[in-house]
């Protein structure tokens, strides 16, 4: 990954670039003819990086390898792990390994889907479950792939960072002997015959001017006799290292930091108050290092929940367009504050965020038992089943005498006959609210000490009294708000007192997420720098010839650099302009080797050039 920065060397010129790639530069003797074939690559890249030294023929097959000791094997595996091919393979494996998690429901994001899958595929489920497919992203095999990838990545970042620090202190390398072999090469001979005196263009003056000019454009420069050697774009490698290091940062903060947080859900009906203590959550997922004292004390009272619907005139009539939870929030030591929680607009309180993730109807019900006592009076949340909020809920009356009562009910905000005599809801708003209940009597099983969900009722062993069950004596009890119905067998009455809205809140606390964002931002900035800052070397050479001063310009790409040729041309133009060469001539020199990126200067190019 860190390996990716300097990929290139497509054409002959750039392949030879690796020669100048001994970054320390000072010891570099420059490009000679021999260098062009003797490619001295970057020693700190994986050996199979495209810019690194190609293994010599002596490394090829047929050579008997020496026996490897334990350390030798370790080194061998390390080299394998940090090679480009392995990194590439692991990347591909990561992509493939992520696929199963999108094909089957995941326990973390869709637990009900997993339960459903078990029912739908009873034979396949145990096999897949053993493979950990329902927890793909925490499964050992998925973890193995990304951990190996990151180890391989770290094994690459460290040596390259060290190397880059050295390169940052190094001077640009000596000017190659034959610039004409390099990219964007152009030359011009300035005749000095006519212009004597102070204006005379000498090699020294040309070199000085070139140096000053390159310095101004952000190049690091070094004069070698009659030439300037300049290099720029160190930021490219810096960006590359930042990008990859930040990815490691993201992984670490997600992996470690996530353990310090928690998340929980709670349904709050209008008029109720939620306090942030463990016992008041409907469900709770603590992080690995969660501690109950982390729960910052605050409370949220749901004053009102309102929904806006699209007007009938527009498309999507009746669709909900806005949910608002008006709440009174109070952190410990703070004043109670009236505020709102909306979708896409969570409430931040006590270091936690409170999100509005769901809503529905809760029904106010009073049940009197056969002896006339109020056995139950409460507000029961009914869970929405469809977009028109047909809602399903359960009422358990363990205190009813002589028998406990249980009810499974449907609530229809806008009830209508669906044509078969059954009810359905045709609108999510409460224009014609109807509560329909199937009533059972018998032991609800609440005393056995086994935890049961408040949203389900096990009807096995219960006696159906009213409802769709064949044994029931009567049809389901149907009530509109304010109505009371009697329960068969003289077991009491049930009153539908009214409807309220409930809001389902998610409370999240994740101290690491700001760090994750920071690292993500860093990696993005690093990526931009690594991909779009060109790293290049440029040389300007001035030699006194019999005719005058011969100026040569050439560049060398270090990594992807599509505009190198143009850049050398621009430098030449500015340089010549500064020396007092007429603008049209300077422009012509700059424009001369058109389309440098496709051009491969061969030996024939040597003679190219101009005289003035």
């Amino acid at each position, binding site marked *: 990954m860190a390996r990716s920065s300097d*990929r290139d060397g497509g054409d002959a010129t750039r392949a030879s670039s690796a020669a100048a790639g001994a970054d320390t530069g000072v010891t570099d003797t420059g490009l000679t003819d021999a260098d062009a074939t003797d490619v001295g690559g970057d020693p700190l890249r994986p050996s199979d990086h*495209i810019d690194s030294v190609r293994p010599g023929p002596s490394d090829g097959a047929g050579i008997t390898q020496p026996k490897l000791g334990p350390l030798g094997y370790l080194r061998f595996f390390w080299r394998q792990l940090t090679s480009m091919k392995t990194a590439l393979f692991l990347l591909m494996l990561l992509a493939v390994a992520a696929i199963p998690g999108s094909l089957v429901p995941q326990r973390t994001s869709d637990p009900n889907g997993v339960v459903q899958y078990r029912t739908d595929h009873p034979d396949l489920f145990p096999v897949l479950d053993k493979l950990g497919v329902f927890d793909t992203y925490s499964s050992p095999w998925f973890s193995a792939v990304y951990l190996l990838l990151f180890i391989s990545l770290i094994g690459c970042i460290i040596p390259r960072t060290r190397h880059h620090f050295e390169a940052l202190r190094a001077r640009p390398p000596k000017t190659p002997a034959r610039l004409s072999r390099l990219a964007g090469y152009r030359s011009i001979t300035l005749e000095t015959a006519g212009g004597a005196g102070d204006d005379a263009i000498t090699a020294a003056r040309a070199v000085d001017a070139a140096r000053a000019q390159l310095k101004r454009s952000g190049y690091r420069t070094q004069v070698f006799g009659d030439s300037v050697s300049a290099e720029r774009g160190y930021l490219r490698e810096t960006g590359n290292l930042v990008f990859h290091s930040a990815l490691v940062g993201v992984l670490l903060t997600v992996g470690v930091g996530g353990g310090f947080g928690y998340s929980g859900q709670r349904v709050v009906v209008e008029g109720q108050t939620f306090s942030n203590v463990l016992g008041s959550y409907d469900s709770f997922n603590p992080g690995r290092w969660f501690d109950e004292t982390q729960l910052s004390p605050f409370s949220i009272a749901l004053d009102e929940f309102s929904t806006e619907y*699209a007007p009938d005139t527009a498309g999507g009539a009746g669709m909900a367009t806005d949910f608002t939870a008006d709440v009174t929030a109070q952190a410990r030591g703070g004043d109670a504050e009236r505020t709102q929680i909306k979708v896409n607009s*969570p409430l931040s309180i006590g270091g936690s965020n409170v999100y509005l993730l769901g809503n529905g109807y809760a029904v106010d019900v009073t049940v009197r038992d056969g002896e006339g006592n109020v056995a139950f009076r409460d507000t029961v949340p009914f869970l929405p089943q469809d977009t028109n909020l047909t809602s399903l809920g359960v009422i358990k009356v363990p205190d009813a005498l002589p028998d406990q009562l249980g009810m499974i009910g449907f609530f229809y905000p806008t009830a209508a006959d669906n044509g078969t005599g059954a009810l359905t809801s045709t609108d999510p708003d409460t224009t014609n609210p109807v509560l329909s209940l199937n009533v059972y009597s018998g032991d609800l099983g609440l005393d056995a000490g086994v935890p049961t969900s408040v949203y389900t009722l096990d009807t096995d062993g219960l006696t159906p009294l009213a409802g769709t069950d064949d044994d029931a004596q009567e049809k389901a009890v149907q009530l509109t708000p304010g109505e009371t119905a009697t329960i068969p067998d003289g077991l009491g009455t049930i009153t539908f007192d009214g409807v309220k809205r409930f809001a389902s809140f998610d409370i999240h606390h994740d101290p690491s997420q700001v760090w994750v964002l920071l690292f993500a931002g860093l990696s993005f900035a690093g990526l931009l720098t690594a991909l779009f800052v060109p790293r290049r070397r440029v040389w300007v050479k001035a030699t006194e010839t019999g005719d005058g001063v011969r100026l040569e310009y050439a560049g060398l790409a270090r990594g992807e650099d599509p505009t190198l040729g143009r850049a050398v041309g621009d430098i030449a133009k500015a340089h010549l302009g500064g020396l007092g060469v007429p603008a049209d001539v300077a422009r012509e020199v700059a424009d001369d*080797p058109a389309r440098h990126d*496709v051009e491969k200067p061969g030996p024939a190019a040597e003679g190219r050039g101009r*005289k003035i």
Partner: protein
Amino acid sequence: MVTADLAYYSLVAVYSAMAIYTISFVAFALDLAKRSGDAQQAAARAAKAEALATASVSRSAAGGSTVVLDRPSRGAGGAASASTGAPAKASSFERVAIAMMLLGFVVHVASVVLRGLAAGRVPWANMFEFSLTGTAIIVGVYLAVQLVVNLRFLGAYVMGLNLVLLAIGTVNYYVAVSPLPPALQSAWLVIHVFVAILGTAFFAIAAGLSAAQLVQTKREQSKLAGLRFLDTLPGAERLEDLAYRIALVGFVLWTFTLIAGAIWAERAWGRYWGWDTKEVWTFIIWVLYAGYIHARATRGWRGARSSWLSIIGFAAVMFNFSVVNVFFKGLHAYSGL
């Protein structure tokens, strides 16, 4: 005007754009056919040019008595341009194709704008609108890239892809204008989705170039005798370079999409990452393109091998857009099919 009227005019514009694009597509296809003939003639010309290559031209600059310009022949450069053999002038088919494409694009953009006006919001909140806006952006990006490099040979591919996507989106997934569900009411809808579509457009063009490169490679290895029009295309290496650079832009945009999506997910769903199906596929695509970039830097992988990754990456983008939207269950389900 009323919403329904605006939406209707938008739809009329979509079908008009499709009709115009069809003409453009046919013209691009004819141009490719014509290129085969041109390539034959170019080969003959090249042979003649070889004989004249030694000629040198000299001229003296006007007014500059001390200035003598001497320009030796540019052997290397001349040969290079002959071998690419790109016709200096666009064929009439090509001109018609580009003109129709531009016209279609204008009508297409009008349709996008009308749809946005009808809905009173950004026109990319459901499957139909994604297709509508997405295809417009693909054409827009293609035309923009066209200003920098000559990619006219890719016109048939861009128009073909565009027509298929636009037609499927309009015919199968058209929905009446409806207001945004609360979950989509966020500034991130504008940013996240738009950048995702933009990234997709760059990936689409890169994939087309990679495909052209693969065929060109085969031809350069003389494994393909036919398809003479390939002679008028840039060489495989140049195609690879272009594909790579365009895919890089796509990759940067995709990275941004991923991060912006995570920020939005935190606001809307209370967690920045939850392995929702769409998140998973966005991640897979990101990893595939990261792999592509690394493959280009791996010895033995540059060239045809890495290009396959670019094509697979784009296939995954299309999969994410179509199959994942339609058949997979997840939080991104309100693409309002």
